[in-house]
């Protein structure tokens, strides 16, 4: 891992969204990206929950990194992840029950996310608190972006609607087409199709435009 002082925090943040996007580039945590993205609202709430937990886990692991024995780091990472997930769930259920009723389902799923464990292992356990926090924010924002795009695509093509959260406990369904055009897109199999198509699309953009821009700037 390169030394922290040379890492630009803005680049570190953007790294999680573009260069190392959890879903489109690293192809990690594909289960949630398929399971909960059948409407836009689900995708957005899941993404926000991941953003929060990823950042908190990165901060905690970074603070603990000097006291963790390397040989038992994985069980300790798992404790931190499941601990944060459980605490978040309990506090939300106690103090914001309306919000919890809508997003509680998604938060419990986060325990099993490979991407969170991967960032704890690859980044937070080797870096100090500020870069770890920025890395968590970037990775979480990248995840939110990916889930939003996937769920937007799947709901629009599969159901002809878009379910937009207008508040934490309210939503608005926009109907564009009054039938179910390509129903398979909202079924689990369609999740694979959607992720595959979008992954190809973003890689194409990357090759077509990003590489060229990088080339021109040199």
């Amino acid at each position, binding site marked *: 891992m390169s030394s922290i002082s040379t890492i630009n925090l803005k680049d570190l943040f953007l790294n999680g969204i573009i260069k190392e996007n959890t879903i489109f580039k690293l192809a990690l945590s594909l289960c949630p990206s398929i399971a909960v993205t059948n409407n836009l609202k689900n995708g957005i709430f899941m993404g926000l929950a991941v953003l929060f937990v990823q950042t908190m886990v990165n901060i905690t692991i970074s603070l603990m990194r000097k006291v963790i024995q390397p040989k*038992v780091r994985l069980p300790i990472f798992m*404790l931190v992840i499941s601990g944060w997930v459980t605490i978040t769930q309990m506090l939300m*259920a*106690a103090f914001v029950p309306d919000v919890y009723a809508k997003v509680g389902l998604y938060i419990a799923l986060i325990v099993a996310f490979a991407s969170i464990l991967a960032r704890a292992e690859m980044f937070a356990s080797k870096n100090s608190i500020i870069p770890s926090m920025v890395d968590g924010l970037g990775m979480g924002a990248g995840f939110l972006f990916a889930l939003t795009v996937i769920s937007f695509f799947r709901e629009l093509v599969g159901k002809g609607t878009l379910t937009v959260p207008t508040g934490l406990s309210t939503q608005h369904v926009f109907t564009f087409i009054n039938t179910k055009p390509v*129903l398979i897109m909202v*079924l689990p199999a369609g999740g694979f199709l959607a992720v595959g198509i979008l992954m190809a699309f973003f890689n194409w953009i990357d090759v077509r435009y990003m590489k060229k821009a990088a080339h021109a700037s040199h």
Partner: protein
Amino acid sequence: MTGKDIFKITLNLVIVYLIGGFILAFVYWNASPKIFRNNEKAEQNALKLLIPGAEFKQLGDWTIHDKHAKYFIAKKGGETIGYVIQSFGKGYSSYINTFIAVDKDFKIQKINILAHGETPGLGDEIETDVFKDQFKGKDIDHLKVLKTETTEYIQALSGATISTRAVSEDAVKNGVAFLIKTIREGGDKDVQHQHN
């Protein structure tokens, strides 16, 4: 790895887990009474939507598909106007958590789907009012699911016959049957109250 290393590693893991456990216990200790009150409030709200203006009192618990469910008596001005029972139906990919409101003669007034994990786009149409309104006024003998157009019985959702059956022939039918058996044939209702 020497014995000393093993000891150090074990100690490290034990201490971290103990601290984690204490933090979780502390948060739970503070949050759980509030969570309990919130759940009770949410349940009361769900009941009020089923029979508006009624007062509810839990009569007891029952078990379906190994799940615990509750049933309530609904009163208005001291007079019994109906019952609400929670029930579960075994659907295509989940157990469907259903609340059923019946009147004094065990005719269904309204049903509500609280939670389920049926297929989006197909089975999740059990949540729609068009589907739920089919149950209004039906008694236990008219819960059969038909694939043809019907108003006498329950019409299956296209592409989601299993989810329809789970609600109608499983959750609702068993729930109402239990209520009839317990309340009508169970005799003295005041004995039931004491089970709380």
